[in-house]
């Protein structure tokens, strides 16, 4: 049960110039992915667990300065999975 060493896609892009270092994205993320030290006006929020993103966009929708963009990975945008492979194996 080893983990595949794939690079992790970051779905939550934060524009350093626009970000005002408020705590809203941290507060609103339902998956506890975005971490920002409360009240710290120096540090950017960190997307600590990018592979646990639901792509709900709540962080983007709440951001007061439109600093956040949700970027979908290639396997979501151009998906090539054979749907039949998801429909089970038949064991006689």
């Amino acid at each position, binding site marked *: *049960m*080893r*983990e595949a060493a794939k690079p992790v896609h970051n779905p939550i892009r934060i524009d350093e110039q626009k970000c005002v270092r408020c705590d809203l994205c*941290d*507060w*609103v*993320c*339902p*998956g*506890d992915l975005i971490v920002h030290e409360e009240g710290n006006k120096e540090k950017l929020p960190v997307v*600590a*667990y990018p*592979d*646990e*993103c*639901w*792509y*709900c*966009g*709540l962080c*983007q*929708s709440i951001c007061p300065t439109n600093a956040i963009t*949700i*970027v*979908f*990975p290639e*396997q*979501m*945008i*151009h*998906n090539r*999975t054979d*749907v*039949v492979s*998801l*429909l*089970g*194996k*038949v*064991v*006689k």
Partner: protein
Amino acid sequence: MKENWTTLDTDLLVVGGGVAGTMAAIPALEAGLKVVICEKGKVLDHCGSVGCGVDHYLTVMDSGPEWDSPEFLIKHLPELTDGIVDLAVAGRVIREMPRIFRRLESFGVDFKDRQTGTYYRLRSFGLPGTYHINFDGTDFKKHLGERVRKGKATVLTRTMVVQLLTRDNRAYGAFAFNFRTGEWYAIRAKAVVLAAGDVNRISMNASGLAFDSWHFPYNTGDAQAMGYRAGAALANMESVEATLTPKGFSTQGLNALVSLGAHFVNKSGERFMFRYDPKGENARRAVLADAAINEYLLGNGPIFLDCRHLPQEMLDRMAHTLQVDRYTLPAFYRQKGVNFREELVEISVSELSIRRSGVYFRGSGLAVDTNGETSVEALFAAGDCATVSGGIAGAAVLGHIAGEGVVQRVRNAPSTLPAIDPQAAEAVRSQAAGHLERAGGVSWRAFEDETRRTVTDYVGVRRTGNGLKLALRTLHVLSAREPQMKADDLHGLMRVHESKNIRLNAEIMATASLARQETRTGSAHWRLDYPATDEENWRKFVLVERGADGPAVRTLSTEHPLSHAFARSAARA
């Protein structure tokens, strides 16, 4: 007990601050009870299962016509649920719908169409009337959150409940921890409401991303798993639910699509749904998913969504409601470069979840009586973790019923609660420390992948006795590896607990599926070795409870309410 424990005494502990949980808290607060809510998120202003707003609400309104009366909808329950329904509980939920709907309006929820000032009611999912109100419910949950805050409930956010406390088949609290601060809570309560939602991250989907799921990936069957460990009975756990999603993005929005008139076509351009149901795209969700699964297996895939025939006004409404349910869906289409107004959109079958198998009022989860109380006294359940589930409305109504049941239960509760057992508390802590301090070990991601692969291959939409037995063996081996799971931090510790809960739900599902030797509701429970629906022998509930060697099964005729199988005194009607 060691330091860093906070002990709290309350009347009601609510697990989960979604629609069901907040609706349960409200009548308790109104009755003057002390309420503690534990919520894994940070705010109470978003819906638990969809994370944002609501675009439709199912209700009878008793507005005059026969179809709009509770009794009319109740009469149709057996056909809507393929005969597997707790008529007592579902009947009460439906009868209470108009009252709870009016309560929600009194909280400030505006169900009316902004342009016309009337309710925009649509027919969908095979229901025998236009019961779905299509509305802009962006603020729906904010009103409930506000109500709870005004009632002065104690809300513990970023806090996961990991173990219920019971004695003599009666619940009296829970252990929980805050996964940001590491603070542990020992909470004693006269009643507990479990409202932690459905089970997701349990099978694979097209994108292969575990958290790309149609329903909320942070709902991981915590209530079902904890309830099971505490001795509560579960029912309908054999039934799985899938939906149709844009391929690559498992997102909500199907209801809006079909109720506004979208079509599904196969690779030949055939509008195939009518081959499966005379209602076509307006069939129940279970039928829609089943039809698409069949088309894919017949080699008629890919399946496409076709909106090209719709008038501009409908397309505009569709574009608007889509982002109410999932804010990022327009961005997905944009990044993909697809215009759904003019082009076909490829559709996939989503990953599975355990919720209500695409069938309203037949929930898969904790069996409850007409007060929302489980087989464990003072332990209630509502929303998608309970056996009567009906989306947002089902969560709101059964949640409120459970809250009122709690008020009665607390009035009759013994004046003193059992003391917290320090050994039990320390056992939870040392188990957590074991995951956090482990140098090597198994990652929760890899552990979960094994569960998902096993469910997808052998417990998913095509089941056989031998496949299910194989799955149960694999899931059993996995359970032995649970102590080896490694958590990198407190957040990871929360995920480790979720992974254990997902695995346990998979085991319960496989056990129930093996017991039900028939096929019912198409691919919601499709046994290739028992392909027919067997009305003579299987008009029954499959109940799963904790046995001496793992999950144990009982069956109960659907002529009885599930509470007939409860060991505690018969339900107070």
